[in-house]
């Protein structure tokens, strides 16, 4: 009996020492001790933060979202019957055009309800990703910079380079226009506007303005997004349940 007790005490002491060391680790890294546990979620979350990394690996001091990590996750979400909806969190400064368009096309071609929230910033190539969801939200303080696609660094100085760049830009414009309520004219006006950005061409669209232009569907945050995704899930599942009855 005593031995058992001693054993148990020994174990709890061991547990405590291992707990305290992991606790110290967590306080050092997170600044907090524990997070609450909750049941499984039928809505998954995809966060697209920092720069969108494409064909070329960016230096490690950049915070990046690697598109090759996200594409298989999107397929997994599409395949998993337990996952009913997807919320996309966006806080990005843009990045690789083709990686961004790949993500946007993947999200827009998913059969499950998708809702995006633009938090902080959804600049440049973040714009097509934001509008690719079934319903998009922007928080009142978030901004989206719309500006022309441009090149820096070494460029082959032939007219074809600029034609290629123009076509690239056309792909972005076409995607945004076909997946949001903004008119092509209006989007191009914003893209090529002068005087809005200091010494640059383009427009910085803030929260409510993005909704007024028809670029984003609504102003809202987590609560609105969760309500919308649940509503979309109910809509897609509604008729099937009636057939069963």
């Amino acid at each position, binding site marked *: 009996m005593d031995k058992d007790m001693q054993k148990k005490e020994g174990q709890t002491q061991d547990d405590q020492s291992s707990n305290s060391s*992991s606790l110290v*680790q*967590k306080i*050092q*890294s*997170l600044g907090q001790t*524990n*997070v*609450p*546990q*909750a*049941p*499984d*979620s039928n*809505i*998954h*979350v*995809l966060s697209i933060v920092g*720069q969108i990394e*494409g*064909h*070329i690996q*960016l*230096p*490690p*001091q*950049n915070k990046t979202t690697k598109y090759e*990590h996200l594409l298989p*996750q999107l397929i*997994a*979400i599409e395949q998993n019957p337990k996952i009913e909806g*997807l919320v996309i969190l966006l806080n990005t*400064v*843009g*990045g*690789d*055009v*083709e990686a*961004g368009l790949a993500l946007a096309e993947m999200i827009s071609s998913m059969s499950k309800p998708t809702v995006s929230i633009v938090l902080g910033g959804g*600049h*440049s*190539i973040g714009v097509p990703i934001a509008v690719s969801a079934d319903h998009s939200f922007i928080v009142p303080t978030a901004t989206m*910079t719309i*500006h022309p*696609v441009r*090149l*820096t*660094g070494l460029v082959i100085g032939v007219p074809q380079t600029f034609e290629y*760049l123009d076509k*690239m830009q056309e792909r*972005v414009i076409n995607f945004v226009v076909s997946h949001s309520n903004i008119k092509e004219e209006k989007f191009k006006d914003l893209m090529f506007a002068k005087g809005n950005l200091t010494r*640059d061409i*383009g427009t910085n669209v803030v929260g409510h303005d993005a909704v007024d232009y028809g670029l984003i569907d609504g102003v809202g945050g987590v609560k609105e997004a969760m309500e919308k995704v649940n509503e979309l899930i109910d809509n897609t599942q509604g008729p099937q349940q009636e057939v069963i009855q």
Partner: protein
Amino acid sequence: MILYTPLAETDIFPHEAGENVNRECINYNGKQVFVEKNKDGSYQLLQLLSTDPQDFLDDNYSPGTIIN
């Protein structure tokens, strides 16, 4: 490659040599995680790549956890 971003090229590609070369993406208990190799040979978890919000509540995947 064409970057579509309001950032300047020098912000993305600084001239000094890159550090943090001992950073890698591994599969840990079926989840993709970014880890950094410590001097003692253990790995410290930097970032969890998952779409399941519940994974982020799991203590085993919180940033800073040491993996042996």
